[in-house]
């Protein structure tokens, strides 16, 4: 039960990222590394928005390198643009069930429940613009909940939120993924986040993605590249 | 950093400057100026204008200014709008469809002397306007393609159902109006019937002569309404002998193009001089191969080679300008009704 990046090479202009690693499912994995290091690029590739130059992506042994984004076992929450501003909150969530929004009574109830689950009871009729930034991302989480994919990926959707709110959101996400026995992949450049929520950390720096290792072990004994990023003098 | 938008902006400023200069250039000559209003195709490089200007200026010690003031009715409208303030001394390019209305404006002076010795197939007795060229309307066809050439309106009506003609709208075109009058002149009491019978032969009606002639040359129609002199262009300029005009038994309607002197001119003598020059060899010899019409007074050297191959209608049809004025509205209504069914 693994996700495999098999000799993957991704290029974007001058920048190249290589990844040759395996991810065990069921973990909560932080993607840690400097800005512009390729964290989002890796997630985009897994989600199907970026075509690798060479290499393959395998899901439980099956090649999904060329699969359409919607057919992949992942949900990706972006930094922003997770919602359609011209649709209501409930409609935005409903899209996770049926993209044509022809929802049955039961499905409407499911949407309501998902809203409640993220603490937005009775807000379904509002437009995203009427919600706060944090509430907007809750809507996106509610939708991810309904999509029920084995892998949830967070591309810093909470970056614009305050520390307390961010923590709250991360905990909500952790709770949801645990309940669904899903795998969580989250981009962060804050080691505290990684320590707080993840059990494994995948280091991405200087154009290379390193295989995930146990977060506590990593932080206790950071390799040189991590030390440079963290700004700590080598001990 | 090159930016096309910026470059365009600079271009814009430059051209505004240029246009200001253009407007500012006054005609700083001491010579008297004779202003002649005429139509566009007369003044172009392919029309008689440039040669006429050169020839007249060689004799008059003046500056002849040929101004494009619109064709046909537009020319007259322009004069009416300008009234007595007009710069025009002479107007060249009206035809007999318009002269009655032109005279009614009271803007024109009588000719002195009236033109004489003209080579027109009809009597000319107008004391306000002098003709400078004329022609016959006719249907032009490709003699390599059309074998059973209709020799009359009757034969045209009875021709093969695939034979199609293209004509011009009398509301917007001189030949179009000419055809309207032609049918009136040939069949004074049966014109409505003729138009109804002709309708199936008419492929389409165009705004102007160019559209119709272009469609004919494309092979879209078998015949096009034009002039008996049209083949002369193809013969002389292109050495192409495939275009002919069909000779119609009923006779051919004429167009006579005329010029007149404005009553409010500040150059009355010069205007007379120009109108007299108009019927001299120097002017008349320019006409056939630039305006592709018959000169009003044949040059001493005769018509250019090629003109002898043209058809010469036996009957020349033309209404007096007063008659045109009296019948044209009813004729148009009849035409509209017949072709709108």
């Amino acid at each position, binding site marked *: 039960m693994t996700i495999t990046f098999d000799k993957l090479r991704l290029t974007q202009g001058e920048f190249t990222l290589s990844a040759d690693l395996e991810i065990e499912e069921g973990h909560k994995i932080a993607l840690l590394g400097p800005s512009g290091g390729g964290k989002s690029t890796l997630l985009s590739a897994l989600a199907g928005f970026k075509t690798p130059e060479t290499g393959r992506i395998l899901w439980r042994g099956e090649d999904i390198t060329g699969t359409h984004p*919607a057919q992949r076992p992942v949900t990706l929450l972006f930094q922003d643009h997770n919602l359609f501003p011209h649709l209501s909150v409930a409609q935005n969530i409903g899209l996770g069930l049926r*993209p044509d929004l022809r929802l049955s009574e039961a499905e409407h109830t499911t949407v309501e429940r998902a809203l409640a689950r993220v603490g937005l009871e009775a807000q379904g009729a509002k437009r995203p613009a009427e919600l706060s930034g944090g509430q907007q991302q809750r809507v996106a989480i509610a939708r991810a909940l309904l999509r029920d994919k084995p892998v949830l990926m967070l591309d810093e959707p909470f970056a614009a939120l305050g520390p307390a709110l961010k923590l709250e959101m991360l905990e909500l996400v952790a709770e949801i993924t645990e309940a669904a026995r899903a795998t969580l992949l989250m981009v962060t450049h804050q080691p505290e986040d990684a320590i707080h929520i993840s059990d494994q950390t995948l280091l991405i720096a200087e154009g290379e993605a390193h295989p995930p290792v146990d977060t506590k072990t990593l932080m206790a004994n950071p390799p040189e590249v991590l030390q440079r990023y963290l700004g700590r003098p080598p001990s | 950093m090159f930016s096309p938008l910026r470059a365009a902006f600079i*271009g814009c400023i430059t051209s505004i400057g240029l246009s200001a200069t253009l407007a500012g250039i006054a005609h700083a000559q001491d010579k008297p100026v004779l202003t002649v209003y005429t139509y566009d195709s007369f003044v172009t490089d*392919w029309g008689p204008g440039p040669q006429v200007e050169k020839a007249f200026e060689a004799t008059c010690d003046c500056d002849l200014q040929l101004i494009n003031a619109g064709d046909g009715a537009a020319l007259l409208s322009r004069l009416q709008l300008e009234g007595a303030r007009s710069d025009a001394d002479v107007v060249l390019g009206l035809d007999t469809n318009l002269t009655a209305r032109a005279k009614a404006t009271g803007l024109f002076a009588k000719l002195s002397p009236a033109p004489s010795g003209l080579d027109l197939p009809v009597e000319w007795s107008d004391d306000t306007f002098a003709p400078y060229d004329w022609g016959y309307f006719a249907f032009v066809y490709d003699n390599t393609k059309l074998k059973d050439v209709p020799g009359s309106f009757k034969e045209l009506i009875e021709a093969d159902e695939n034979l199609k003609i293209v004509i011009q709208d009398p509301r917007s075109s001189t030949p179009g109006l000419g055809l309207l009058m032609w049918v009136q002149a040939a069949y004074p009491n049966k014109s409505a019937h003729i138009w109804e019978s002709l309708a199936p032969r008419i*492929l389409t009606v165009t705004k102007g002569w160019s559209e119709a002639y*272009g469609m004919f040359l494309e092979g879209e129609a078998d015949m096009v309404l034009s002039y008996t002199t049209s083949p002369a262009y193809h013969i002389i300029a292109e050495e192409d002998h495939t275009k002919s005009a069909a000779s119609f038994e009923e006779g051919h309607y004429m167009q006579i193009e005329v010029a007149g002197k404005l009553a409010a001119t500040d150059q009355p003598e010069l205007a007379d001089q120009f109108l007299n020059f108009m019927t001299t060899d120097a002017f008349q010899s320019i006409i056939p191969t630039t305006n592709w019409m018959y000169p009003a007074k044949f040059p001493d050297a005769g018509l250019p080679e090629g003109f002898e191959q043209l058809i010469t209608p036996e009957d020349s049809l033309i209404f007096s300008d007063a008659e045109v004025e009296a019948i044209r509205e009813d004729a148009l*209504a009849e035409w509209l009704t017949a072709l709108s069914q």
Partner: protein
Amino acid sequence: MADRAQPVVPGRKGLLSRPSLFKTLAGSAALLVVLLLTIGTVVAVASQATAGRGFTLADWAAIRFTVIQALLSATLSVALAIPTARALARRRFWGRQVMVALLGAPFILPAIVAVLGIVSIWGRSGLISGGLTALGLAPLNIYGFSGVVLAHVFFNLPLATRLILQGWMTIPAEHFRLAAELGFTSRDVNRQLERPMLRAAVPGAFLLVFLLCLTSFAVALSLGGGPRATTIELAIYQALRFDFDLSKAALLSILQFALCTATAGATLALAKPTAFSIGLDHPPARWDGTEPGTRVFDTVLLLTVALFLFAPLGSVVLRGLPPMFSLPPQIWPALLNSLLITIPAALLATVLALALAALITDMARRSKAAALLEAIGFLALAASPFVIGTGLFVLLNPVIDPFKLALPITIAVNATMSLPFALRILLPALQRAEDHYGRLGASLGMTGLTLFRIAIWPRIKRAAGFAAGLSAALSMGDLGVIALFAPPDFATLPLTMYRLMAAYQMEAAAGAALLLVGTSLALFWAFDRGGRLDHHIR
């Protein structure tokens, strides 16, 4: 930084509480130019009128024919343009850029050239009839109502496609990404994203096409097969030229303006602005439309449209190519004159449109005043060139010889004639830019020109380039008032082309036509491209 969507709720006022003095002045000046050249010239013509005769039965028939053919032509053009634009928006194929660029071509063909091009394919002696007769079938006969509609679709389908394609570009790439993530089918993309966009873009496109067809004259008559195809414009021409009935010409003009205003009111009321957020200008990669059915549909559609549009163009090129190398020397000064008119006219049109758009943007959105200004922006399309020419003459002649002002007059008239297009393109772009970035800019302390230069202009540059390009192409091909006011020794390229035709030189004219089309396209391309240079905005 993250640029979060900040849509302003429609109905609220824009960024500033009221239009600034500068915007008010500039906008009013633009308004004045439009009103002067449209209503002003009609009033001038009417002022010269003696008692006229009022409308006849034939006039009513012309009015009915005009409206019916314009409605049908506009409906067909837009109905075909929607799937065509969709296919162009979601497909990437070799030659796509060229196809999009060439979409500008049919629209700028002078009427006479277009008629000959259409006839060479669809006419009695055209390509299709040739094939039919070879098979022993009867040749096509397009002359009549079908010919008029065919020609108008040929002219306007490409324009409508470009305008609607512009609408597709307003859907941010991020929305398509999210749609892909959520597994939207083409149908879902259509329902959730494209329909709201079309609701905003289609009414404007329909209106433009309708107005263009409303004022058609030479094309409608030539392919209409006879006086049944009399349009209001021809009736105006007849009133001015055949009847010399100025009061009727003025009446018909006013009727044309009324039709324009009514249609503008109806369509603009239908238009519903979208609430799409603004993306980060990623190239709009697309993951939808992968179903085999839609692939086949798009391919067949694009091929058909390409054939329909480019076959007549091909014949224009084929006919014009041989004489291109032996063009008469008069062509070159004419070309230069045309450029001297076209480039300033295009810039003036863009500036006028911008001034008007800025004023409209600052007014309460969807207020009556804003709608009225927008409708006035369209008036020029309903203006008859003959009435403009006559009216200008009446207005100017007592003051100055209009011929001395031929160049500035032509520039001003051409700019005003292109204004409706430029405004249609610029207004939505400016409104989006103001909504999303005006506030950001203002919060950074930018005001006035700085705000415009830094926050607004980069966002509308692309639309401005498109607007200027279209205006340039339009005024390049327009015979317009220069035919009425051309001083001696002054000709533009279209005028020279018509003169060559009048002098029997049809071949040289075909060469001139090709040069005209080529130059128009080049200008269009240069301006359109100018809007994209130095910027990563796609």
